[in-house]
């Protein structure tokens, strides 16, 4: 039987939490169990829009997604309160596959929300170790730091207001040059992920990146989110291996708008 809920299921918001300025988490109960970190849900804001959201909290009691207020849909989501209703379908996509014991996780901005349940999954096995790099523009944009308090967390800020001054990919390169990792996993701005994937590919370190594209159907039919040779970000992804990404010429360079026209990243 399919694990997916394929027609939007109306759920009541159990709670919301402001994580940082303009960044919020919405919590709810969802009947589909066994969500893999890296998978996403299609969130229907009734009467307005439906957008993909990767799952940022996974537990038996409730799940959650975390987002930044950027457009009309996320502004509407941001204003929702406890007991308001949203439609949810999914989980969709493949999710991350953990390989080895020593893992470097690199998150840029809200990309860390996709990685947070992965980090918790990595640490659920005793012998695994994880180093997390969290890159933001400035100190005020940090969140989840309490959630990561027992984790080897390294912060980078563009303005140097806290931690390493520079972008996350620079810090990642420094760390990779000094330490060996079995795997690197990244989610964040595509330019950052492109740099990290290139660094890992040239050193033959297994690497996975979670991509973002304009998603319409979410079930691999409409072709809107296809990259490379027909790889559907919603179905074959959103997580891709470094060797696959090496063969996708547009990775890090362009995406497609709602009409299917190419636009620069």
């Amino acid at each position, binding site marked *: 039987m399919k694990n997916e809920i394929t027609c939007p299921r109306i759920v009541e918001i159990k709670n919301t939490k402001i994580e940082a300025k303009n960044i919020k988490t919405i919590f709810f109960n969802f009947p589909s169990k066994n969500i893999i970190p890296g998978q996403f849900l299609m969130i229907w804001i009734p009467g307005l829009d439906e957008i993909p959201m990767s799952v940022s909290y996974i537990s038996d009691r409730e799940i959650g997604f975390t987002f930044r207020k950027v457009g009309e849909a996320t502004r509407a989501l941001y204003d929702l309160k406890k007991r308001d209703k949203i439609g949810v379908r999914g989980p969709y996509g493949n999710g991350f596959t953990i390989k080895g014991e020593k893992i470097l996780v690199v998150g840029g901005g809200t990309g860390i929300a996709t990685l947070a349940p992965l980090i918790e999954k990595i640490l659920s096995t005793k012998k695994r170790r994880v180093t997390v790099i969290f890159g933001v523009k400035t100190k005020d944009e940090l969140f989840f730091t309490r959630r990561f308090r027992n984790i080897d967390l390294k912060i980078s800020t563009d303005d140097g207001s806290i931690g390493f001054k520079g972008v996350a990919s620079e810090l990642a390169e420094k760390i990779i040059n000094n330490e060996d990792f079995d795997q690197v996993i990244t989610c964040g701005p595509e330019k950052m992920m492109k740099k990290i994937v290139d660094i890992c590919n040239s050193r033959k370190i297994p690497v996975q990146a979670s991509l973002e594209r304009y998603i*319409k159907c*979410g079930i691999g039919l409409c072709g809107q989110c296809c*990259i490379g040779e027909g790889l559907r970000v919603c179905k074959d992804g959103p997580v891709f291996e470094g060797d696959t990404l090496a063969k996708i010429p547009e990775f890090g360079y362009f995406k497609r708008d709602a009409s299917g026209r190419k636009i620069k990243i």
Partner: protein
Amino acid sequence: MKNDEIDTSTRLSTLVLKNPFMLASGIMDEDAGSMIRIAKNGAAAIITKSIGTKQREGYANPTIVEVDCGIINSMGLPNPGIEAYGEEIKLVKKKTSIPIIGSIFGRDEKEFCLLAKKMETYGADAVELNLSCPHAKGYGLEIGSNPEKVGNIVASVKSSISIPLLVKLSPNVTDIVEIAKTAEKNGADIITAVNSVKAMKIDIETGLPVLSNKIGGYSGRAIKPIGVRCVYEISKEVDIPVVGVGGILTAEDAIEYFMAGASAVQIGSAVYYRGVEVFKKLNNELKEWMKRHGYRKLLDIIGLAQKNRRG
């Protein structure tokens, strides 16, 4: 009899297909990369996303909803516009050897002719007129349900291109046979039947239609009997080949369409139900079925229900 002794090739006008399974318009065919993947998975031909004169974003999400026995979609004809689409057609032509059929939608004869000519210039092997999209104002079904408009558009497109012309029809009309005959009379080389069926899904918790456009087109298992009926009725009355589409998930589904008179079929929603590999799977299943039933050639099945009918 071995599988490789069974011939499932077919012809549509001057188009030769290695098997009868084509990709339907609108499924993984907005960019060259997707179409190349579909070709590598055994599709015999590809019908592109419907392309218009101008770039179009389509409707807001939700644009698709899964319901019992199928999927309702209302994408709203998103496409990058005919000028930008040239590079996709040229690339897919360079990388594949199967017929690439350019689907087009326009408001009137002038737009359809311009689009058809562009498709031919880009290297498309045929053109399919979308006269049946059930959910776009001023396009598709709004034109395709009017026999006079269909006749004029088909005649003018036919006179402006030299590649085969397919006309895709909607089941949402009183008499699909009349429209098909009008298309044939005005120069259509092939009829495609059917487009998705007008449908709707309401969420009872919120009391709202799920799709942003409210009404969409139903595809998948539920519409197969409708498609088979349309193909049967059309095949009886026209001499040009008919392509069946609607709810084909298995070879048995396709065989119903062949027996109704379809010379080939198009696959859409089954890419969701059975994966991108569906084309290879269907052709193997078809060969197995033919072997079990003692048929060597697909041509022996096509129109069987027409031949067997009484009165």
